[in-house]
């Protein structure tokens, strides 16, 4: 429903601004071009999406997620202390983080939601605990090893080397997740 408001808002603002400035005559042309670009974008994404979903399936099957989970254990215990006593929660959490890292969005979300439910069941009221807040902050700051969609768009637009943004993406998402968690830690102490 939110998206309906956003979309209608975008159309309304364009129409009124176009009327005000007299540039509205270009709108119908822009609409047909936009529709065409939508299909072009979908087609240019198709190959990469097909490939990376396939690779994701292989990574899942060979147990890469579980292996990463073992490497991640120390960090996990630091951010989510409840894991030490709740091994089921630990499984969900590490599954969620590793699937996100490998770009397996389809696997990451159900796992993350299971972890959120488990964390919520640790207390009786419907108030988010500090750890639940941290889980969600972590999920809103995408830490991804291979941002396949963006790379696909880049290559469709003729980038010399579509994956050359990788180091920048890694640094940027680590900073965002790290500082987000730090912010959550500070706020968790003062917010009731």
């Amino acid at each position: 429903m939110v998206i309906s408001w956003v979309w209608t808002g975008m159309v309304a603002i364009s129409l009124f601004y176009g009327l005000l400035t007299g540039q509205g005559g270009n709108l119908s042309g822009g609409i047909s071009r936009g529709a065409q670009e939508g299909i072009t974008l979908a087609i240019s994404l198709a190959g990469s999406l097909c490939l990376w979903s396939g690779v994701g399936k292989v990574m899942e099957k060979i147990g890469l997620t579980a292996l990463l989970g073992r490497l991640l254990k120390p960090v996990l215990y630091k951010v989510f202390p409840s894991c030490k006593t709740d091994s089921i929660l630990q499984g969900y959490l590490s599954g969620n983080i590793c699937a996100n890292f490998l770009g397996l969005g389809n696997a990451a979300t159900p796992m993350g939601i299971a972890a959120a439910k488990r964390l919520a069941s640790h207390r009786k009221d419907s108030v988010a605990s500090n750890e639940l807040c941290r889980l969600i902050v972590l999920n809103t700051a995408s830490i991804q090893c291979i941002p396949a969609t963006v790379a696909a768009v880049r290559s469709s637009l003729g980038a010399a080397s579509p994956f050359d943004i990788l180091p920048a993406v890694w640094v940027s998402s680590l900073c965002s997740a790290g500082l987000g968690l730090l912010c959550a830690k500070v706020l968790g102490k003062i917010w009731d």
Partner: protein
Amino acid sequence: MGLISSYLVPILLFATAAWALGKKEDPYDLLLQGGREGLQLLWTLVPTLVMMLIAVSMLRVSGVTAWLGELLSPVFRVFGIPKETALLVLIRPISGSAALSVGTELMATYGVDSTVGRTVAVMLGSTETTFYTVSVYFGAAGISKTRFTLPAALFADFVGFLTASITARLFFT
């Protein structure tokens, strides 16, 4: 770093397939299975991309995008974020497909290997659809008091936009 990013993909393809063979799995069949799922997902995404690109295109041809950039440019200049990315920064936390549409347009307009184009790509790769994620998780967990989650998550997005602008300049000059 350049060497890592150019060899990562081919090595990953080889390593995962060889590993699967070693485990007596059938990697080619798995690739096909996953590929089919990926295309099915894309099929459901096509109408969203079309509708969003229509709205984004309307914003651009009517001049709203440029006006928004000018309006926000004093704020953006303070943080060193390119003003051309204003619409993307505003829409990224709200809708993933809208952000992808805006980002694609920006990369096409300013050049995919330009500083603006790279900043856009890094922004898209290192942030998430915050409002959507927050509502899905809290909805599923039955939480009504979300406390500081949204401010902290939006702060993380802001840091992502900031570092995307910095790294896109630093790593490519």
